[in-house]
């Protein structure tokens, strides 16, 4: 009986996985580290992470406002919820920092905690990294090569352009399940002409049965390979058609970029896609802290508030922690220097701890929706909830601990004063 149960559970799980794999498999993820740009207002580029952070901000404020709109002494419903959260945070902060400092630190620490945890958990919604505007990768590639040709310099480093085969490019869309990713690469040192050749060969290899048989991937494609690729592309009615610019040169191409030079073909004016196209979904939403800008901003905020509290509590004496005259104590001079360094390094560690965890989590979720949809993803979602909470707690608590360290008196003189001050109170208590 028991064996039957186990067997049926295993079969059920496998069936579940199989169904997921056939029906709900996600697209092969294109991992892009920098946040994708959606639009720009003046110098400020609105990336999807910034958009997400604004939405989360509005959400937090809306929740706070709704919960405190009509406060009553006997709490109920929403007010109870927010009060529980706030009083939990106050309790924790006061327990660690003491009554007086706790109240001072509380608002910033609580905001850090709420901000981080809301962003992390909000980022787990399924519409994240899935719905977005599509980018015409073909256009992007041609534009990049044209720019490089305009500059007249070779590509400095290897560059990758990820794309999915898509029916349409442009407009708002959802990442297609089971979309296969392709990557066009330019090698370091390629001139624009070589990159143009490479692109033609790449198109032929991906859209037709043509194979260039290049032994060395980094070597520029041979003339035969490019011509063969062109022939293969022209032979297949569904394959993209590469339009060669007429000699003498058009000034402006239809697609808004200059003709792309090609070593073999002269100049490519445009590429037309009668069938499938090369596109990429630029998601509207992406976890706020999967962008280094945002985690770095939080690291800087944490640094600034800690230093602010330090100066506020100790005045200029706060600097005495870091700058000790070498004739007083050479060792302390060195220690002070290390302290100063560690203050600055904290920003970096704050930044990358949060970024690493959240970015890795997003990649993991995307990867598993592609590799093993259903079941494993659920487990990872659970894990991500936990990670989101832990990272928020770590960020807030570390800031709190650093703040306590900053407002504490340091140095021998201060210790004597403290002891001196303690004795009378002790005596009073003894009485």
């Amino acid at each position: 009986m028991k064996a039957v149960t186990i067997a049926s559970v295993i079969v059920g799980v496998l069936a579940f996985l199989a169904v997921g794999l056939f029906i709900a498999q996600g697209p092969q993820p294109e991992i892009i580290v920098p946040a994708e740009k959606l639009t720009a207002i003046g110098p400020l580029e609105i990336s999807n992470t910034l958009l997400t952070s604004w939405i989360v901000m509005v959400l937090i404020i809306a929740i706070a406002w709704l919960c405190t709109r009509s406060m009553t002494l006997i709490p109920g419903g929403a007010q109870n919820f927010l009060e529980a959260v706030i009083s939990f945070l106050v309790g924790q902060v006061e327990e660690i920092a003491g009554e007086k400092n706790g109240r001072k630190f509380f608002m910033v620490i609580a905001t850090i905690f709420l901000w981080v945890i809301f962003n992390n958990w909000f980022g787990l919604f399924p519409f994240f990294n899935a719905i977005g505007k599509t980018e015409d990768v073909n256009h992007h590639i041609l534009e990049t090569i044209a720019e490089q040709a305009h500059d007249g310099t070779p590509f400095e480093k290897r560059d990758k352009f990820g794309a999915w085969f898509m029916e349409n490019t442009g407009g708002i869309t959802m990442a297609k399940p089971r979309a296969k990713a392709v990557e066009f690469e330019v090698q370091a040192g390629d001139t624009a002409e070589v990159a143009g050749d490479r692109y033609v060969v790449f198109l032929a290899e991906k859209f037709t049965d043509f194979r260039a048989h290049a032994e060395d991937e980094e070597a520029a494609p041979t003339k035969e390979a490019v011509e063969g690729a062109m022939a293969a592309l022209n032979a297949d009615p569904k394959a993209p058609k590469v339009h060669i610019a007429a000699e003498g040169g058009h000034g402006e191409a239809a697609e808004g970029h200059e003709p792309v030079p090609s070593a073999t073909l002269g100049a490519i004016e445009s590429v037309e896609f009668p069938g499938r196209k090369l596109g990429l979904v630029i998601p509207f939403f992406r976890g706020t802290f999967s962008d280094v800008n945002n985690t770095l901003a939080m690291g800087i905020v944490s640094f600034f508030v800690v230093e602010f509290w330090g100066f506020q509590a100790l005045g200029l004496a706060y600097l005495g922690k870091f700058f000790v005259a070498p004739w007083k104590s050479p060792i302390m001079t060195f220690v002070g220097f290390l302290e100063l360094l560690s203050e600055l390094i904290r920003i970096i560690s704050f930044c990358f701890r949060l970024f690493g965890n959240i970015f890795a989590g997003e990649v993991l979720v995307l990867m598993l929706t592609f590799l093993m949809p259903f079941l494993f993803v659920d487990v990872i979602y659970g894990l991500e909830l936990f990670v989101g909470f832990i990272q928020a707690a770590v960020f807030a608590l570390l800031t709190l601990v650093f703040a306590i360290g900053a407002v504490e008196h340091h140095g021998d003189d201060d210790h004597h004063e403290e002891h001196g001050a303690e004795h009378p109170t002790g005596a009073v208590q003894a009485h």
Partner: protein
Amino acid sequence: MDKAVEALGLNLPQLIAQVVNFFVLLMILRLVAYKPILKMLDERKQKIAEGLNAAEIARAEAASAQANIQAQLDTARREGQEIVANAQNIATRIQADSREQSAKDREASIERARAEIQQERDRAIADLRGEFADITVRAAEKVINQSLDRQAHQRVIDETLAESNFSGN
């Protein structure tokens, strides 16, 4: 460094925007969440402390009132007992008095009765004596047929009676 910055997508405007975001959020939350809620929490804490204090006072008052009542009850009970005891004493005394009185009365009435009886008897004896003297005189007259003067007779009779030792007692 530049490459790292580019690879990570670092850009200053967004960095600043995010720092600003945080402080804006901090200010707004301070306004709509932290201040009202902290105020409410403190207020409630104070209210609860006051309530507990009041309850403590009320309990103390109730306890003292209870003690008061108990004391009063005790006094009342003691007084009642005293009153009852008094009453019982009085009753006993009254009973004793009445018993004594009645005994006295009885005694007196017996005494009176006895005196009356004595008087009655004395009178009866005196009557009887008078009667008896007459009878005796008549009888003696008849016996001796002598006419005697009455005073001499009386004297003889008294002597006789004295000799006969007949008395009322």
